[in-house]
């Protein structure tokens, strides 16, 4: 049985707050271990560090939002205990007090603390839930996503090669947004393959890798199944915005290179074999 085993739910919340409005959210913290643990809470701001959703935490706990716990018996930063296999509900209140047009990216941390001072050399664990807040006066936040770093690989597309559609989606807007779009591949005017894009959250002025949504609602590479019939394919990526759609078109050519090369090599080999068989021997010539 693990000495530390904690669950937090939800793992992420995304909210839009108008000036002076407040959002209240209940978090469920579960101690799945066989020992009573002491925990404390904190809020730490972060910035995105790459195009895959990783973050870097800032060396500050300051935020221009008003954040507190609404629990009657607990304040933010105050220690509390959870007994084995027990749950605790923490109610977080977030108020837009700055009234600015901005995005706030934070993590609500639940941090383990040693129960007695003699245990000050034991390893500790923290678990966090992301909070993405857009503070705005607007009724509708305008979506402004665009495709970047786009490519279809490999460069030589054979009927037996896994054709991957790669790229990033960049958020030019001033608030976080979600990808809402599709990839459609057509051949001779008929839809050959289509897939929804995974609805990643993209922070402002940042990008996320382009992934498709699989049947389990999980992200996966956007990849065509082999074999792919030879010919010219037209592709279209549609990003749905709240005002208009952003479309990106591309095309690629698939040819049975491997079959042709094998056939050619076999043909040349056979031709050479036939030539050798047909050629009269040098002894006969001398005679």
């Amino acid at each position: 049985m693990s000495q530390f085993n904690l669950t937090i739910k939800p793992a992420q919340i995304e909210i839009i707050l108008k000036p002076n409005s407040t959002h209240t959210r209940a978090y469920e913290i579960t101690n799945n271990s066989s020992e009573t643990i002491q925990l404390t809470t904190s809020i730490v701001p972060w910035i995105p560090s790459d195009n895959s959703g990783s973050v870097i935490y800032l060396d500050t706990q300051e935020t221009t939002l008003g954040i507190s716990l609404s629990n009657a018996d607990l304040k933010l930063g105050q220690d509390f205990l959870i007994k084995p296999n027990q749950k605790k509900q923490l109610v977080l209140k977030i108020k837009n007090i700055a009234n600015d047009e901005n995005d706030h990216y934070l993590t609500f941390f639940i941090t383990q603390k040693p129960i007695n001072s003699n245990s000050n050399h034991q390893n500790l664990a923290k678990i966090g839930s992301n909070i993405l807040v857009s503070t705005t006066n607007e009724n509708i936040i305008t979506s402004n996503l665009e495709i970047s770093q786009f490519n279809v690989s490999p460069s030589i597309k054979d009927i037996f090669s896994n054709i991957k559609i790669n790229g990033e989606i960049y958020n030019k807007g001033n608030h976080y947004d979600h990808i809402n779009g599709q990839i459609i591949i057509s051949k001779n005017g008929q839809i050959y393959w289509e897939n929804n894009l995974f609805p990643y959250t993209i922070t402002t002025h940042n990008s996320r890798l382009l992934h498709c949504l699989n049947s389990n609602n999980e992200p996966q590479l956007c990849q065509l199944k082999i074999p792919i019939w030879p010919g010219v394919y037209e592709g279209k990526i549609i990003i749905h915005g709240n005002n208009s759609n952003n479309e990106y078109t591309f095309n690629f050519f698939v040819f049975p290179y491997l079959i042709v090369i094998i056939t050619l090599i076999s043909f040349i080999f056979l031709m050479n074999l036939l030539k050798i068989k047909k050629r009269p021997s040098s002894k006969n010539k001398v005679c």
Partner: protein
Amino acid sequence: MTYLFFPIPYAANAQQFSSSSYKINWGNFNMTSGLKKSTNYQLTDTVGQNAPGYSEKNGIAIKAGFQYIYDTFTELSFSIDKLNINFGTLEPGIGVTDTNLLIVTTPSGRGYQITAQENHPLWISPNHFIPDTTCDANNCTITSSAPWTQNDKFGFGFNVSGVGATGYFINSTYYRPFASIYNNHTPAIIISENLPVKEREAIITYRVLVSSVQSAGDYQNYITYTLTPKY
């Protein structure tokens, strides 16, 4: 009985209990709610919820009713098998190891990252410490691992094995030192994955190697592991 307290946009929807000396305002008072299952059917319900369903006002979206907790798998879980690592009595020139097992489950659609940070090097006091490893060729750092196999390269470091650690540690001979609060390091990522995982395991191997001139005593520190979902 289960009850739920949600912020309700209209005051008229709240329940109120009152007498001559007190008044209690309830945001909501459910009669029953939850997930019911049979062989062929699954039902989620909330009876007594004020204004159940999705509502939005003044820029705040509210999903009222317990059904909404079932719409996605939203839990993030983190377990560590043991919190005390004891290397026992160290002998000069002989590396000693111990391990931790970390297990992670992430919500649907999200990867994760785990960072690690020590409070300070293994020490009795700031002047009597075991240095953090710099590996065989003095080329590992808090963010970059390198081979550490030689018995005359003294220090304390760690290796991680598991699917999420392959980008940080090539194999089990690769080690690196922990980021340290004492040295003003920010926590360093030691494991990460872009896709969601269920009960993903990673093994941390701690290694300590001391010289014959190392002072005798109890050397201690602690490591903080932080799990966060990718946004």
